[in-house]
């Protein structure tokens, strides 16, 4: 495994039983992702994006082949080890936000730190910093039901980022958002990637998301059909220009 590679996938297959037959969701996937990448698994519905993201996130295991994430083979992890990996090193952002409804915004963001047994004072500092980073410090006491879709997704980003994970996995993060909110949260993620060098991996077929990616891994019918590196992503260029204008 390359020193800078944090994810290495070789000959990965994933099959699901459907009745008496087996449905192949992923077939012979080979992939290497390095630290600090802002990449996306793109392709139509049913192409295997989410399945691959779930395997990288240790929520699922490959049927064949190997997936090494941060030096750990997903196939060989026990339930406990997988939960430790997710707890310490992975952040998840979901299409439907998946905020815990009875907790406030603050408590939702605090949750991963509670699992990490972070001391209270440090926890408070980290939660407030994460909420500041997504411009939601003023909503700390709100419940998820009181937030708009964009705000909810920003809370989800704060929750994913609060523990400073090595990798953030975002599954269709803009699917439930309008264009304005989509750009806003994507710009937030670009900024976090740039400032903290956190690796972001998206699973999406949204053009807005694709416009920000610096690497586009296209999947079709469970296979990687193309893997393109983009030097100047469409929206990132505009974002950089905007940042420059603002700093002047």
């Amino acid at each position: 495994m390359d020193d800078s590679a944090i994810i290495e996938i070789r000959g990965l297959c994933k099959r699901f039983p459907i009745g008496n037959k087996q449905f192949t969701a992923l077939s012979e996937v080979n992939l290497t992702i390095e630290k600090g990448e802002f990449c996306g698994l793109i392709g139509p519905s049913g192409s295997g994006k989410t399945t691959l993201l779930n395997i990288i996130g240790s929520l699922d295991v490959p049927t064949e082949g190997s997936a090494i994430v941060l030096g750990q083979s997903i196939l060989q992890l026990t339930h406990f080890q997988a939960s430790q990996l997710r707890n310490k090193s992975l952040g998840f952002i979901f299409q439907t936000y998946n905020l815990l409804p009875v907790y406030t915004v603050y408590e939702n963001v605090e949750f991963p730190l509670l699992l990490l047994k972070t001391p209270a004072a440090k926890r408070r500092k980290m939660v407030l910093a994460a909420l500041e980073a997504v411009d939601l410090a003023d909503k700390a006491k709100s419940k998820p039901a009181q937030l708009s879709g964009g705000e909810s997704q920003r809370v989800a980003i704060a929750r994913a980022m609060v523990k400073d994970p090595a990798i953030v996995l975002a599954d269709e993060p803009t699917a439930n958002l309008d264009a304005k909110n989509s750009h806003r949260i994507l710009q937030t993620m670009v900024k976090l990637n740039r400032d903290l060098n956190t690796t972001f991996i998206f699973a999406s077929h949204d053009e807005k998301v694709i416009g920000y990616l610096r690497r586009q891994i296209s999947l079709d019918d469970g296979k990687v059909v193309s893997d393109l590196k983009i030097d100047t992503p469409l929206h990132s260029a505009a974002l950089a220009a905007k940042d420059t204008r603002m700093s002047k």
Partner: protein
Amino acid sequence: MITLRLAYRNLMGAGLRTWLNTIVLSMAYVIIIWQKGLLDGWNYQARHDMTNWEIGGGQYWQEDYDPYDLFTLEKSHAQIPEALTGMNPQRPVAPILIGQATIYPQGRMQSCILRGIDPEQTVLHLPSAALQQDIAEIPVVLGTRMAESTNLNVGDTATIRWRDANGTFDAADARVVRIMKTNVPTVDQGQIWVPLARLQQMMQLPGEATIIVVGQDTNETGPQEGFVFRDRKYLTKDFEDMMQVEKLSGYIMYVILLSLALLAIFDTQILAIFRRRKEIGTLIALGMTRGAVIRLFTMEGAMHGILAAFVAAIYGIPLLTMQARWGIPMPDITDNYGLAISDRIFPIYSAGLITGTTCVIMVVVTIVSFIPARTISHLNPTDAIKGKLS
């Protein structure tokens, strides 16, 4: 600790659903404790009254005496042993002679039992001193139940007919000198209390008795010729058996009440796991193990028990304290049961009863919460995150 915190937050966040379950469970707490306290109170009172009014520290029975067979009364009498006749203050006894009779109040006829007791005895709480009246008629003391059934009041007279030791019928007038109020029906219903010496004379059985009640503090209960000693345990066996039946029916009630409350919690847990599967998937994605999620949901269910204990304490303590202080009035009809029931029962809520009931409920609630929570281990987290069933 974190599980406890999260469970508490979830429980509080669930709002009305939590409080409905908690209130139902708290009612089970209070009713179970109330019911058991009532039985304990009744048990204590009945034993106390029976000891004071009937059995004392135990009884010597004449060898042939069988309280369930009236035909044995004819020969159930023997000389009071000398060792027991002294009426020594250190070792007081109350000999009682028992005989069958018929009373004719206002021309009606009614079977009854004549009980002769020494008017100076101090062993039983019977107001036997009232029998020390120098009147032509036989002075008698009746209980309120007997007085009611014969329609006799203090000062009334009625004819009594009896058979003496030789089988000869005799009759004389008796005058009611006192009507006593007692919670022990066996010394009241169908019983007529007369002076012992007078009854011995009437039945031609001088110096004889059927039973000899010993004082409550008497330790010497050695064998006496012609008599068999029956201890308190033996004498309260019928009551004990009845209490066992009462306790059994109490347990049935206990199980029904607890089942209703547990059903609500079980139902809530099943619904919660079905409705909150997306949340379960999210918790697993955030790094909780399935075991930790199961513990969290079990703890949430179990905390219903803790909350219910607090809620039960809020309204239960004043309510039960009030009842323990003022007692619970019993209906007049309970007099007809033949059991020692006072007109007011004072429940006894011991620390053991409260702690025991609380522990049992906590354990059962935890088990009931764990059973549905186990299904989480079969949930596929990737489906759960999307809210799908797997």
